[in-house]
């Protein structure tokens, strides 16, 4: 277990290093610097500004100090939001994005697993067919389309919920549903497939033969093993939800990290782009690590590998 853990941590550090390097050099070869946008600055001022942000130093030195900064969670000052640190901006916006992501993931799990169980249990009935059709539809729906329809009816037509922003709980319903639709459908499909397999296995037959109640057979015996593939899905799902947030934040005007990322790219605010990318990457690899650990806890068979 310890070796496994150490090896995973090593992969995480390597991944983040590669990500940092890619981001740094990609943004340096992009044509057009951050300070030659609308009106050209006089050369002296421009030189001063570039000196302030360290843009006049040799590339490798910038790269070095950038890496050193990252290791201390310091991404430097933002180019566009004068006087603000990237770290500050991220600390301001990250909780919002996390909140949205956690709500959606929660919704996806409490919707997806029961639907999957139900349709596996009622395999080849109309319950199964209609819920699986809905699940494929849920996977195929572009989230901005879901968002647009929800806003149109619930906010504009029926006036039940606010169309945008992120303040009280009423603001959080529509974004959560919009982001949760696709993960819920994926979880439902996977739960169904996994449960169908374990429901036919020997240990379930044994449990039935012992006279265990039907509910207990499904929930305690069959479902526990079917959850393993679902848990492995949570890694890619975390990735989907993380990047999904930036479409949702755009639609609902939520002041989260994704919205800042979009603005930062258009503004060529390099430090902010790099900071957000690094945080996204960090959360992604951490999510994958947690999934690996959860995997080892749920299924003792994978522990020794």
């Amino acid at each position, binding site marked *: 277990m310890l070796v496994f853990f150490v090896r995973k941590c090593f992969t995480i550090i390597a991944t983040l290093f590669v990500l940092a390097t890619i981001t740094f050099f990609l943004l340096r070869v992009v044509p057009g610097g951050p300070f030659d946008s609308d009106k050209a600055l006089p050369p002296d001022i421009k030189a001063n500004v570039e000196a302030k942000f360290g843009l006049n130093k040799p590339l490798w030195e910038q790269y070095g100090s950038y890496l050193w900064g990252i290791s201390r969670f310091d991404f430097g000052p933002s180019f566009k939001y004068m006087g603000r640190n990237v770290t500050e901006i991220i600390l301001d916006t990250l909780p919002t994005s996390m909140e949205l992501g956690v709500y959606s993931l929660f919704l996806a799990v409490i919707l997806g697993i029961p639907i999957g169980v139900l349709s596996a249990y009622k395999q080849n009935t109309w319950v199964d067919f209609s819920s699986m059709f809905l699940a494929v539809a849920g996977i*195929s729906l*572009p989230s*901005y389309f879901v968002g647009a*329809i929800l806003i149109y009816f619930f906010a504009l037509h029926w006036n039940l919920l606010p169309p945008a922003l992120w303040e009280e709980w009423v603001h959080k319903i529509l974004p959560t549903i919009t982001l949760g639709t696709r993960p819920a459908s994926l979880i439902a499909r996977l739960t169904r*497939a996994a449960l169908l397999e374990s429901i036919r296995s020997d240990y379930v037959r044994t449990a039935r033969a012992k006279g265990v109640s039907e509910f207990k057979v499904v929930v305690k015996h069959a479902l526990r093993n079917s959850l393993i593939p679902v848990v492995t899905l949570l890694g890619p799902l975390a990735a989907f939800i993380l990047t999904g947030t930036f479409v949702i934040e755009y639609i609902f005007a939520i002041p989260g990290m994704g919205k800042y*990322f979009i603005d930062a790219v258009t503004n060529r605010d390099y430090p902010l782009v790099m900071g957000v990318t690094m945080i996204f990457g960090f959360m992604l690899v951490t999510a*994958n690590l947690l999934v690996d650990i959860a995997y080892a806890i749920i299924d003792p068979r994978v522990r020794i590998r």
Partner: protein
Amino acid sequence: MFLESWKRIKKHKPSLVSFAILLIFTLMAVAAPLIAQFSYFEQNAEHALQFPNQTYWFGTDSLGRDLFSRILYGARISLSVGFFTAVFSLFIGIIYGSIAGYVGGRVDSFLMRVADILNALPSLLVTVLLMLVVGRGPLGIFLALGFVGWVGEARLVRGQVLQMKEMLFVEAARSLGLKPFRILFQHILPNILGPVIVSLTFGIPQNIMAESFLSFVGLGLEPPYASWGTLANEGWRAYRTYPYLIFFPGIVLFITILAFNFLGDGLRDALDPQSSKRV
């Protein structure tokens, strides 16, 4: 093998219907100049923002352009970005994955470690960054999506090649003294075609979706190119009063992705029966 698969897929009605829909959409996109009564850039200020009617089936946008024609031409971009990106990713994935799987040993573990690292990157963000460098046209988005898309394919191909390598017919080929290259291309790859085709079918809608997300938030294609995502982006700005502007691009995209997913499910059952666990 393919005859049997065809028999199986013929019974799967949803995938036949989906295939028909996709075929019709593709033909319409190819024949767009013949079908569209208006060109996608033709502006007509007097007819701006008309709700769907007999002349303009899907209505017109704020510049008086016919939405139906724009969706028709948008299909060309959306479908070809999806298709070519998926094919490109698959091509790289096959080369990378079969080298890793066939050579094995240290080469394999090195290549797979690299793939693991690339796989853990936030792909949509990396796509955005790459597009800043290679440009925001169809070619740029194709390269950027392809660069992050091949890793999954490589892992799939590697797994399959590893399995096939142990088969008797491969051992027979090797004992006859065939060159590794020939064994790989003549004996192994044809046998893993099933899973590969299935993953291609799922890869296309993923790329169409990714492109439309990027274009929707304004980080994807730039004018004059119009994909379904950029149309949705334009529609988004005025949709409170003119909901049809986002409804039609959205529904067309939805039907396309839905059809690809049903087709993929059907193909998987027919070509790759063991993998029903993968979703």
